[in-house]
């Protein structure tokens, strides 16, 4: 859970800060800055999606294995009986 909170904070905090920033702040940086930051954000989202996907797969495997384990022998039992 701590990991997810970290990811959420990492993604949401910059967006919240950015939206709260005054729109008339002087843009003295290189004009390409906005594009680089945007792509940094996309990269962060992509990285977060990868992490979440990895965790989801682990969670799914865990649930799947735990849920299926008893089913496998019961399925086979009737075939093995004779």
């Amino acid at each position, binding site marked *: 859970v701590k990991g997810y909170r970290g990811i959420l904070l990492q993604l949401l905090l*910059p967006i919240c*800060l*950015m*939206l709260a*920033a*005054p*729109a*008339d*702040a*002087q*843009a*003295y*940086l290189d*004009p*390409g*800055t*906005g*594009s*680089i*930051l*945007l*792509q*940094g*954000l*996309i*990269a*962060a989202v*992509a*990285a977060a999606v990868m992490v979440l996907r990895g965790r989801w797969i682990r969670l799914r495997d865990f649930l799947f294995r735990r849920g299926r384990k008893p089913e496998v022998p019961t399925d086979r039992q009737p075939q093995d009986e004779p």
Partner: protein
Amino acid sequence: MNPERVPGSFRDPGGQVYRSGDRILRALHGEAAAAFRAFDSSRCLGALRERGFLVGFEALRDVAELPAADLWLEHPRLAVISHPYEWPFAVLREAALFHLDVQLVALDHGFKLRDASAYNVQFERGLPLFIDLPSFAPYVEGEHWFGHRQFCEQFLNPLLLRARFGVPHHAWYRGAPDGIATGDLYELCGWRDWLSPRHLMHVLLPVRLQRWASRRPSTVGHAAARPLPRTALRALLEGLRAWIGALTPRGHSRTTWSEYESDNSYEAAARQVKHRVIREFVAARKPRLMLDVGCNSGEYSALALDEGATQVVGLDSDIGALDAACERRARGRLALLPLYMDVANPSPGQGWRQQEFPRFNERVQPDTVLALAVVHHLALGRNIPLAEVIATLVSQAGAGLVEFVPKDDPTARRMLALKRDIFPDYGAEQFSAQLARVARIVAVTPIPSSGRVIYEFERDAR
């Protein structure tokens, strides 16, 4: 050989374009030459060439008379160099999609484009060509698209200006040849745009992020260091492609002259005569590059192409007429390039030393000109002296057709309806006399029951 550097070719220290007579040469230095050699021997080059995307080139071996460089290339000379502020909406959209296609093919083969300049796309016989070969460089996994801002400013923003706000891009773009700043477009956006994920991503977020980061300089370094996966870059390019492909021009659908063709005052017989004159002229002259001044919806351009002209550049300043010409071009896959141009105010030389973006007449040198139903717009509509109008039209090419429209013609009457007739020197006799002063009149064809006359001229050798 005495090559001279093309004045506008200075931004890239890795390579410059030179002109020597009619030949177009390119010098490459250091890393740029090495990158080009890698590109030259890659599958990427083959894939792009197969699709007809690239301008031709040949590596020069005999370079003894040329200035020092690590590699010299020669390109075929293009008949037309046009600028994005002259392209109608549909042509700019086609160039944008073409640029993205070049990038996507390159990315599939491990290459990228180092910039996203709209001036690197040119049209030859109606088809787009990518002309800046040193733009290709090997793609490194994880790197950002550094041309994103330039792509937005030179392709996307001008298209959005018309598609979202109904404002044609030409005047604004001409005044800002590096493109329409995203910050300026941001100021036009309303709450609706915040609800559009694409506006948010390519217009609103970059501006807000830039403003936010102006007080936190270190964030830029962090963002730049974060690797952008190739799949994300691809999705970015494909998303833009889908969006731009679906953009349509807003407003100006029914302008004065876009309906001219369907409701103009010609009788069928008069139209037939006009068509015959054009066909005979084109058949006899076999134009390589024809300039159609006041092309309207491209009816006569299409006729000239059908009769064997190699390619036609059509000029008009009416947005609706240009949209119609673009439709005709797309429908017939014509070697026609319609351009936005007010003949009374053609594109000037601009940029550094006013030579970086050369004036229109330096970039387009036609061998024939059509100036049908255009003289009265300039002489009566814009008060330009008749002698100057005729001399300027004749100076465009060695031969052409120019039409006289009398004051009592319905279109001329409409023009004079709200102003006094202050044109005592505008008449058939004066027209013919002025034309004879600057050119040899080859043929004179009156258009039945209209008072209009078409003159075929050849430029006077005197």
